[in-house]
């Protein structure tokens, strides 16, 4: 187990949440030099970085230590990065950002389908990565804070408790899926453009990858729609974005 403490003078620390502690990242990357450089730079961004050189090592680490976000390379020795991603997702909703040299559409979609919350391609700078991490860890409260719950058709959303029920049964969403749903539900049937969603959920200023959004919408529909191929609640508005139907 390698652990790097924060060095130098971080300009701003990356808050994990309300308690204000630093975000702990698990960096799974087999290239030692990248691991070192990224570790140093992320430490500068105010993160605490735990490093792992393989999927197996990452699993062992997660047994003993708590992290807030996993940064995952896809080309790993031993267990393949995608399998690591699927296993982690099956275990819980720990946020995962894939950091890969593969940039083909098929790879991006496969990575997101494996359960990743975000997908960034190398070369990338730590500051950009830190922005992604910050967006992932940010808790989203609906615009109308007084509101206790949001209703979309037979879906009921409790933003404060981060709980979603469909027809009374609790549905398990990842944090990103949950925030995506809250953003759409809070618009109360108005169209939310792709750019707005990318900005609010993933923190992309612009040039966000729309595949990211498409795959997450697909994942969300699989969980909250009766028939994901004929969605009734989360609707696509051609050329503009998405909206929900049936808000109460």
């Amino acid at each position, binding site marked *: 187990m390698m652990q790097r403490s924060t060095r130098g003078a971080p300009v701003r620390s990356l808050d994990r949440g309300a308690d204000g502690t630093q975000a702990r990242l698990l960096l799974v990357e087999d290239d030692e*030099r990248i691991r070192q450089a990224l570790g140093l730079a992320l430490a500068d961004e105010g993160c605490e970085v735990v490093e792992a050189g393989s999927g197996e090592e990452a699993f062992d680490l997660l047994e003993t230590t708590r992290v807030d976000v996993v940064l995952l390379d896809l080309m790993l020795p031993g267990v393949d990065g995608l399998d690591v991603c699927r296993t982690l997702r099956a275990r819980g909703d720990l946020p995962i950002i894939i950091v890969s040299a593969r940039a083909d559409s098929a790879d991006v979609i496969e990575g997101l389908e494996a359960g990743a919350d975000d997908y960034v391609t190398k*070369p990338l700078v730590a*500051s950009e990565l830190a922005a992604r991490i910050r967006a992932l860890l940010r808790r989203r409260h609906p615009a109308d804070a007084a509101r206790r719950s949001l209703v979309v058709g037979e879906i009921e959303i409790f933003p404060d408790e981060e709980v979603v029920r469909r027809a009374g049964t609790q549905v398990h969403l990842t944090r990103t899926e949950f925030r995506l749903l809250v953003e759409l539900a809070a618009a109360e049937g108005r169209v939310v*453009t792709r750019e707005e969603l990318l900005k609010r959920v993933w923190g992309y200023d612009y*040039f966000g990858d729309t595949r990211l959004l498409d795959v997450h919408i697909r994942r969300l529909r699989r969980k909250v729609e009766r028939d994901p191929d004929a969605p009734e609640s989360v609707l696509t508005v051609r050329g503009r974005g998405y909206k929900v139907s049936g808000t109460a």
Partner: protein
Amino acid sequence: MPLTLRRRVATAFGLGSLLLTGVLAAATWNLAGDYMLRQREQSAVRQAEVNALLVANSLRSGSEGLGELLAGLTSDSPTSVLLQRPGGWITSGRRIDPTVLPDDLMDEASAGVPASRRLDVDRVPVMAVAVPTGGGSDVFVQLFPLLELHRSLSFLGVVLVAGVASSGFLGFGLGAWASRRALRPLAELTAAASRVASGELHTRLPQYRDRDLAALATAFNDTTEALEARVRRDARFAGDVSHELRSPLTTMTNAAAVLRRRRAELTGAAGQALDLLLSEVARFERMVVDLLEISRDHQQADGPTGEIVDLAELVRNVLAARSRAPIAVEVGAPPPVVQGDRRRLDRIVSNLLDNADRYAGGAVRLAVLRARGRVRIEVDDAGPGVPEDMRERVFERFARGTQAGQRGQGGGSGLGLALVAQHVRHLGGRVWIEDRPGGGARFVVELPEAEH
């Protein structure tokens, strides 16, 4: 201008069939005309002989009824009857001057041999039959008009000429069709070759069953396959090189970020060297990212695209993400929409804006317009403009225009406009440069409009 091969084949077919049917028609005309005339002659002679017998009987009985008989012979048919007696001519039917009868006809009949001639009387074609009668002293002459026969013959003529003409046309048509059929592989080859020339390297010819054509097709297919493999290998090499650069570049940019944060700790030459290093790492990164984009595009066709994009909205978004003060966007009505990969459109707009920033002090006008089923993005700058002879070249890779060598700080990758051209091509559009009214350059991107 020489005739095309197809036209020549068709003409040969037409002339050939014209000649063949012409000969056949001429032969038919002659044989049929001859035969019909002979038939008419024989029946005329037979009838004249019967009539001559009747006249002979009447003469023998010396009866008065000769005139009546002659009148009876001509009453039900448009013939003329003449009887030469030693005392002169007795005629019946249509009035005929006996002098029109040829002398040799009369001489032959007087000699006791029935004879027949064709001749025109008062411009009517007739068959004259002369039969000796009345014990050899008299000659019975009957004239049969041939109008019916002539009418039949001219009708036959018309039919034959029409037949010849239509067979000529038919031959031409057949020739045209046959040559087009025969030359179809050639047309396919031409089309395939021009497709290859326009960059569709996956074009192949079908396997022909004909042995000559199969060899041609195989040769063509082998050539394009080798060409395609070569092009793909070159493209993949660029892509592979760039891909291999991703990992060291990730290390470099992050190490650079750590150093940049501590720039103040280095002074003098070390600090200057660090600045150089940092700016070059940044440029290197941009170059690799652009190279990856340009070579990835070569290797893979577009995935599932066909997203409908509101272009004005997209342009505004790109502008909003830039550090420069945003300028207003002129938008046509209704808002133009295109169908395509949003990331390509983003890149087109932002690369054009980068270009304006780098070489012309920034864009001064941005317009999204529609015209005749096409959508236009216009990016104007107030810079020095682009000279005519450079307007195509600036879209080539690593072309640096008139400002060659002037890379200044934050120089581009040299691929920005090449990427614009490539993405525009992928979206089925065109990009070109015009003079901006009032000085400067206008970059115009024209894309097919999506259906609303």
